[in-house]
Structure formats: structure tokens, C-alpha cells
């Protein structure tokens, strides 16, 4: 396995150049010893399997699923390209690129929608009187802890052809025939915005809660209108919350599996469903492994961006 196990032995002292401190050395050794069991479980059931999967992405698919232990870059190649069966010409794998692009596009849209409605909601909660704030926050927390599957199922009942939404619209005579929302990209978008909204509201609330409301008075005293105060005072200061909420929504949206499977049907796959397909009917484990690694890479880039943005915000705010 590629990931090295941390050796639970005595560690070198923190400050090189000074004499080793036996008490400090023991503290550090005990730190490792106490962490070791958790790290072991995570190694065999989280990090280790990822390393194995990285290896699998460079192997040859077996005939009935699984792999043959022959090195091949075909899995990675097939993520973006395809070879013509007859003349061997290479072209873009349109189907794969479409699915990747749909995943990225829907995730960005989900993030944008949840921010557009989540920011006013977080602001509303944070500006309630303190006695009632906890109650409003609790109302956001309940859906957050409710099973994702149940929430997806709930939204499914609302938007299906015989569902509540269409019944109401037909009832009031706005439309004659039900609008087909289920099994479209719109359905996946509505569903993801619905299930991931609390992930946007909670960090936004945390940021707005720390916001010093006296700054607003200062802004209005200096003849700023509401729009200017929002754009030039509030948004720059709560930026860490905006970045945190966006990452918390974007990352699970990109890897979404349950919501597109239930609301998108067979044709409107996202990358998560496409990965599953490779391990099921597709019987192309290396391609599935390569796609998973791709997804992981995109997520890591997003997380790095997040860490950098946070460091910048953390370094700048005490002076501002």
C-alpha cells in the first residue's frame, strides 16, 4: 500500500538544536499511540482503498468486471477520448465530456441558487432577536440532519407529473397538461438546491452572526444606500462564510449520486452515476477508477482554493 503508516515511535523534538526533552518526547509518543487505532481504521477503510483505486485506474478491464493485471493507460485515455473501432482514429468522447460538463454546470448553478436564496435567509436569521434566533436556526438544522434520500423523495413527490406542483397549477387553470419536470436537468437542479441549501445557510449565518452591525450605521451615516452597503460593506466582510458555504455545496453537488439517480432518471446522469455504471453494466473498472480519480482531483483543487481564500481572509481581517 502506498500510504506509509505513521511509526508510533519516539519523535524528534519540536525545536531542533535544543537538547531533547524526555517529557516532551513522551507526550509526543503518547499522542501518536492514542491516534494510531483511528488512523489504522481510516487507513484500511478510507485512504488505503483510494490508493488501490489509483492503481486500478492503470490496469486493463477484465471480461466480466474486475481487472486483469496488465498495465494500461486506456482507462485515463477513455475519460476524454475514444477510438473508432474500424479505423482507429481518435476523437473526443462526446458522451463522457457531456456528462462531465453537465456535472460541473449543475454544481455551479446549484451553488449560485443556494447562495442567492441562502444569503437572505441567513441574514434574516442573524437579524432576529436573540431569543428567537435559536428557533429559526433549529428550523434550518432539521432538514440538514434529515436523511438525504427522504428529502430527495419529498421533492420528487412535489415535482412529478401527478405531483402537488402540477396539480395546483392545473387546479388554478394556469396550465392544461402537467409540465414534465421529473427526469430533466431542471429536476436535478431543483433537487440539489433543495437538499444542499442548509449547507449554504449555516456557514453564512456563522459569518453574519459575527458581523458588527455598527458598520451598517457607519455606512448609512456616510450616505451609502442599501445596495452600496450590501455590496461594499457586508459582502466583503462575510466573504469567508460565502467561500465556506460555496465549497460545502459545490463539493457534494459534484459527487452527487442519490439525487440525480432519483430525479434525473437514466438519461440525465451526473459523474457519480456514470462512475457507478462502469462498475455495473459498463464492466470497465479502470475507466470507473480513472473517472473517480478525476472527480477527486477536481474536489482537491476546489479545497485548495478554499484553504488559500481562507488564509487570505484570516491574514487580512485583523488589520481591516
Amino acid at each position, binding site marked *: 500500500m502506498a500510504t506509509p503508516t*505513521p511509526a508510533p515511535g519516539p519523535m524528534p523534538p*519540536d525545536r531542533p538544536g535544543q537538547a531533547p526533552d524526555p517529557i*516532551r518526547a513522551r*507526550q509526543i509518543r*503518547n*499522542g*501518536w*499511540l492514542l*491516534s494510531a*487505532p*483511528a*488512523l489504522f*481504521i*481510516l487507513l*484500511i*477503510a*478510507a485512504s488505503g482503498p483510494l490508493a*488501490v*483505486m489509483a492503481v486500478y485506474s492503470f490496469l486493463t478491464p477484465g471480461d466480466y468486471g*474486475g481487472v486483469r493485471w496488465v498495465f494500461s493507460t486506456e482507462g485515463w485515455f477513455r475519460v476524454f477520448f475514444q477510438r473508432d473501432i474500424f479505423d482507429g482514429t481518435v476523437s473526443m468522447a462526446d458522451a463522457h465530456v457531456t456528462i462531465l460538463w453537465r456535472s460541473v454546470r449543475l454544481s455551479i448553478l446549484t451553488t449560485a441558487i443556494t447562495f442567492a436564496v*441562502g444569503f*437572505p435567509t441567513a441574514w*434574516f436569521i442573524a437579524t432576529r432577536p436573540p431569543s428567537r434566533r435559536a428557533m429559526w436556526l*433549529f*428550523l*434550518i438544522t*432539521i*432538514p440538514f440532519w*434529515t*436523511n*438525504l*434520500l*427522504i428529502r430527495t*423523495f419529498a421533492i420528487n*413527490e*412535489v415535482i412529478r407529473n401527478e*405531483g*402537488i406542483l402540477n*396539480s395546483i397549477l392545473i387546479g388554478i387553470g394556469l396550465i392544461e397538461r402537467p409540465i414534465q419536470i421529473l427526469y430533466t436537468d431542471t429536476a436535478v437542479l431543483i433537487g440539489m438546491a*433543495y437538499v444542499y*441549501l442548509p449547507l449554504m445557510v449555516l456557514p453564512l449565518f456563522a459569518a453574519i452572526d459575527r458581523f458588527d452591525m455598527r458598520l*451598517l450605521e457607519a455606512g*448609512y451615516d456616510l450616505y451609502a444606500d*442599501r445596495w452600496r452597503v*450590501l455590496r461594499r460593506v457586508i459582502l466583503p466582510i462575510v466573504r469567508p462564510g460565502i467561500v465556506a458555504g460555496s465549497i460545502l455545496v459545490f*463539493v*457534494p453537488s459534484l*459527487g452527487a*449520486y*442519490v439525487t440525480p439517480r*432519483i430525479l434525473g432518471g437514466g438519461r440525465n446522469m451526473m459523474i457519480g452515476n456514470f*462512475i*457507478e455504471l462502469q*462498475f455495473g453494466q459498463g464492466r470497465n473498472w479502470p475507466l*470507473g*477508477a480513472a473517472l*473517480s480519480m478525476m472527480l477527486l482531483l477536481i*474536489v*482537491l483543487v476546489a*479545497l485548495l482554493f478554499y484553504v488559500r481564500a481562507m488564509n487570505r481572509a484570516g491574514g487580512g481581517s485583523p488589520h481591516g
Partner: protein
Amino acid sequence: MARPFSVTALPGFGLIAVAVFVALYAPIVTLVAYSFNAANSITVWGGFSFRWYLAAWENRAVQEATIRSLIIATSASAVATTLATMAALGTTRRGRFRGQTMIYVMINQPLMVPEIVTAVALLIVFAGVRVATGYTGLGYLILAHSAFCIPFAYLPIRARLEGMDNSLETAAADLYASPWRTFRRVTLPMMAPGIAAGAMLAFVISLDDVIITEFVKTAGQDTLPTYMLGQMRRAITPEVNAISTALLALTVLLLTAFFLLGRKRS
């Protein structure tokens, strides 16, 4: 007369917020309402009845899935909470040391990697282990759940430890308590709220898991969520609503208890 100028008010924000709360709860309320439907349909109302709760209660598959879910969630949260408590003790209150960041990254890894990626990686590894050892029991699911529950148990326990005062333990040591006794009688009771919070989070996370379970389980190892996912592909009856409502009630109950406990303390 014009309304007094409110500094914190922003135009339209209240309206959007109220609309968001309505949109958030309307689907859930509908789902709960139709679980009491007497008719076969999840969209046509046929009167009030507990019929589907009874159907779910007597359904063999649901019974088995429920028991399996509870076994996995109890075992996984027990393992995860124990290991997370040890790791939290190992990574707090002893100053920063080399490799600590690596421990943090490894512990929080399940929070960063998309679940589908972990699920597929586990599918690959466990498929190999199954062939090699011939073991096909619930162990794989318990192991996988324990791993991804560790960060959820770890974070509240660490937060509690970092906010704790060292002086009581120093006092105990001054009074000739052995390190073990100090830990048992002083440190552990003070950590207890953090451990309880961590265990509860781990339990709920394990109970709710769909994706990793769906990929790691073998035939006949459905948990309640994967059973429901399977049902949703077929013709849906209000039985699914009844199961959902029961799970929802459990979540709300645990959350309310947690909420009230937290309020009492502060």
C-alpha cells in the same frame, strides 16, 4: 407614517427567507401527510389511516433492514467514538508536534473525499478481500461505517477538549491521584458532553448512509435507506412515506433532545 429606518433590514430579504422556509418544509409536510393516506397512491387522498405504518411494521424485509441498520449504526458509532476519543486526547493539549497536521488530514479525509469515490474504492478492495477470505458478513459494512464516522465523532470531542480547563486535572494530580484515576474521575466526566455529541452524530450519520452502503453491501444486506432506494425504483406506495416519517421522527426527536440539553448547559 413611514416605518422607522431599520439599519439591519435589507429590502426583500425577509420575504425571500419566509419563502425559503415554506419551500423547505412544504415537501416534508406533504410526505408526512401522505404517509397517513388510506388509498394506495402517494398523490390521491383517500382518508386518514395508519394502514401503511402497519404494512411497514409487518413487512419482513423492512423488519430485517431496520435491525441491520441498528446493528451497523450501534457498532460503527461505538467503534468510531472510542477511537475518536483516543485520537482527540492524542492530538489536543500537548502542544503542536510534527505530523499532527497529517493526523488531522487523515482523520478528516472522509469529509473531503466525495462519498461516491470512497464507495467505489471500498467496492474494489472488499471485492478482493471477499474472494480471498470467503467472509461475506456485516463486518465490511461495520468497518466502512466506522471509518467515515470517525471525523463526525472526533470534531465535537476535540472542540470540548480544547475548551477544557487543565487546572482541575493538575489539582487531582497534586492530591496524589494516579494518572489513570485522574483520567477516570476528572478528565472523562468533563469530556462526557463532547463524547455524547460525537456518538450521536456518528449514529445519525451511519443510520442515514446510502451511497457507501449501497456499494459495499452484498445481496440480502439491505439497510433501511438502501431498501428505500430500491423501493423508489419500483411503483411507490405510501409505505415508503411511512418509513420515511418514522425515520424523520427519530431524527427530530434526537435533535430536539440535543438542542434542549445544549440550552440547559449554556
